[in-house]
């Protein structure tokens, strides 16, 4: 049974007919073609589907689309502005935060959520914030380096 979902995705207000049982993940990927948000597990275990809902990290695979009605959703596709990568995205490029890259969107969105509430986290705070995001390629070292570099870049810009 579909009903109208009013929602803002990556800054654009939308009204879409969405099934009552549709997951936010499927709405984003299959409905809007925002395939940057990844499915890595069967429910809340890997963090690959992390998006921001009203500015806070949320697992899109454990969230009903209608449960965030009238809310604001940001995905990895929404971070770059006018083709310019965000400081986190740039840092993941410059510091090899991404190898196969499948976990990268979730990692960056989880880190983005952290930096919005805590702009100057130390390495241990970053580790803890990313503890729910699995990566099989990097051993996390360069992911942490990347987030630290983005923090540094933010301080320099400020």
């Amino acid at each position, binding site marked *: 049974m579909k009903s109208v979902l009013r929602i803002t995705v990556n800054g654009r207000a939308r009204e879409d007919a969405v099934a009552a049982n549709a997951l936010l993940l499927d709405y984003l*990927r299959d409905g809007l073609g*925002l*395939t*940057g*948000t*990844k*499915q*890595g*597990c*069967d429910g809340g*275990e*890997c963090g*690959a589907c992390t998006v921001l809902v009203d500015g806070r990290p949320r697992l899109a695979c454990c969230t009903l689309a209608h449960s965030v009605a009238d809310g604001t959703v940001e*995905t*990895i*596709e929404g*971070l*770059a502005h006018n083709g310019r*990568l965000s400081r*986190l*995205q*740039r840092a*993941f*490029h*410059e*510091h*090899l*935060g*991404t*190898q*196969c*890259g*499948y*976990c*990268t*969107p979730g990692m*960056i969105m989880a880190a983005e959520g952290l930096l919005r509430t805590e702009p100057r986290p130390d390495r*241990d705070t*970053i*580790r*803890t914030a*990313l*503890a*729910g*995001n*699995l*990566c*099989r*390629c*990097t*051993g*996390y*070292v*360069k*992911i*942490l380096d990347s987030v630290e570099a983005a923090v540094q870049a933010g301080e320099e810009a400020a």
Partner: protein
Amino acid sequence: MQETATASPTVKETLIGQRVRKPDAPDKATGKTRYINDMVLPQMLIGKVLFAGRPHARIVRIDTGAAQKLPGVHAVLTGKDVAELRFGFVRDNVALKDKVRCEHDEIAAVAAETEEIACRALELIEVEYEDLPGVFSPEAGAREDAPQIHDRFPGNKSLAFEFRHGDLAAAEAASELIVDNVFRPHHVTHCCMGTSCAIADFDHNGKLTIWTQTQYPYNYKMDLAPALGIHPGDIRVIQPPVGGAFGSKLDVYPYEPIAALLARKTGRPVKVMYSREEEFKASPTRQAAIIHMRTGCTRDGVLTFRTADVLLDNGAYTSWGPTIPVIMMRTTSGHYRVPVVDFKAQAIYTNNPYAGSFRGYGNVQTTWATAQQMDMLAEMVDIDPLEFHLKNAQRSGEVTPQRSFLRECALVECLETAATASDYSRKRKEYAALRDAPGRYKKGIGLASSIHNAGGAKIHKSDGIGTILKMDDYARVTVITGASEIGQGIDAVITLIVAEELGVPLEHVTLVNNDSDVAPWDVGVHASRTTFIAGNGTRRAARKAKAQILNAAAKMLEESPEDLDLRAGSVVRNTDGAALIKLERVLRQMHFQAEPELVMVTDYYEPKSEPEGAAHVSDHSAAYSHAVHIAEITVDTLTGEIKVDKVTVAQDVGRVINRMGLEGQIEGGLAIGLGYALSEDMRIENGMLKNACFRDYKLITAPEMPPLDLHFIESHCAEGPYGAKGISELPTIVIAPAIANALYNATGVRIFDPPMSPEKVARAIFERCAPAGSGAVEPRLAGTAA
């Protein structure tokens, strides 16, 4: 990029050893990269597989009538449709089964318009099974009265391997000290973040296009064809970006022919993609083994012999898992100077999940045993393990009993570097002395090393690579290469090498490496070979292009080609670095002159290694390498939890090419090894996997990753590109026994069956402190069953 109109540096700046970014990272970091899992084709159907869900059974009856009639279902296939299309290493597998031999056996498959309809159709398929007694360990499978799993393989015997060298009886007699243990490396799995996926589509000439995650696109055609009854030449392999591979995509697995069979049946593209639960159950594992190893040495600490008697849990079918003895025997015979060797291995069919290749292939399991026995012998000889290792370490130019020629060997340097950097010898003594002092937390330090092929491994007829390099009128370079990218970063390495040779900006190099109809042969991403083999291929192709350009430029400039070079987008004079003409102008003049020429070169590189051969006496890799890990840990003796505080790594990398990529490979490889050592464990009970999710199958997470101190030893491999060796497997291989040796140093206990989980460690510590009969009661955490 600096504009250099008149003068370039007279000394050429090299990119070799610099930190180069991965060219695909911006798209990956913005969500733009379209992985195979994200792909949708027009008219595409979704394929789903019905798994048996029982380990061993006869299929009495299958009724697909109701599923066929469900609206939206386009095809339902069962074993009857494909019974004769056998595939696999020993042709023991088939896409859809006529008998159940393991939990994830594929019994039927459907293609439907949506995933929801496909799943509903699976529920409508009725299957009647007659369960059979199962075989759940290789020991049980080897018994005379064991149930038979395959009619064609009596006694459940799969592959067997043997290697002998020297007079064992004499060596044993000369050994004053012998260690003798049984090690049981367990089942773990790859856990690629992107689950297994294939999309198949036939054209009307009968040619199959398959979008796949494969990491060996050319032999993949040969292996897939028999499962479909078509010619390998009629398969086009396209490799979209993948969410990891780590060896798991080095064979054909049934979901791939199933996608193709459904596509042929329906005439439409069909996508099969696993859920995470299916991925855990139906993708390959690391090979589990029982290794009975004995090592001897003299009272002076000189190794005398090593034997390994290995029993492999083949699982239900034969993929790359049971072929690991090819590498196991190299470690048994070549990990330190071992004059006498006796190795044998037998794989036994069981009703367990079956193993494929996995980063560290065979050597993770073997080094778990050899590196612990080195530590045990050092203690028996009563010398510092570092000294014991140094005493038995090979030097450059030595040859192992299997004829691995260690041309450039940096084992001694690796040992000394890691030991000095970590203050190993002092800490080891200090921690051992505190072992039985009061206190809940104990510190330990452990050293382990290993040897691995670092220039491919000639287990196929060819270990080579084809490369095509072309340049356009604007000096943009396209490299068309067989080298697959699975996240490891060969894109950055190839880009770096082209920029180094042709003096073009990194951003001006494009890679085409994902279409078997376009790119030439390569044997695949495995055996720590790609930087070595593809690096050489790229360099050779680039140098051919460079020679062509400099010859043409020399004519234009009336100079001698030997006096010219390519730097910063220009042809320069060698002596003073003066830029004489822009490279793109030279290319355009070459193209449009009276006798026009284009720069488009080809190269085929075959490394100077010898085929493995049935006797296993051959120099089968173009290079070999060593790594040493020193792990520092804290053990909670009450809970058994091991915290890894720091790992010092010294690895012979030949020469650093892309420093950032090298670090990333070592960090990531080591993390996989840490999971193997500490937490990852497939709980298989009577053939059924009990923990098919990340909640119950514990990967290392960011907070558990210890600080690493990396040291790159440059042994300058003569055959390697710029001196480089392959590097990516050793980090996964060495860490587990380093932690095991640290655990011994801290607590005096040894674990022979990984992972070193808190339960096992706590129990071992308890048993050491309170031997049976002492009356002590083992502590139990509240809520756990006895």
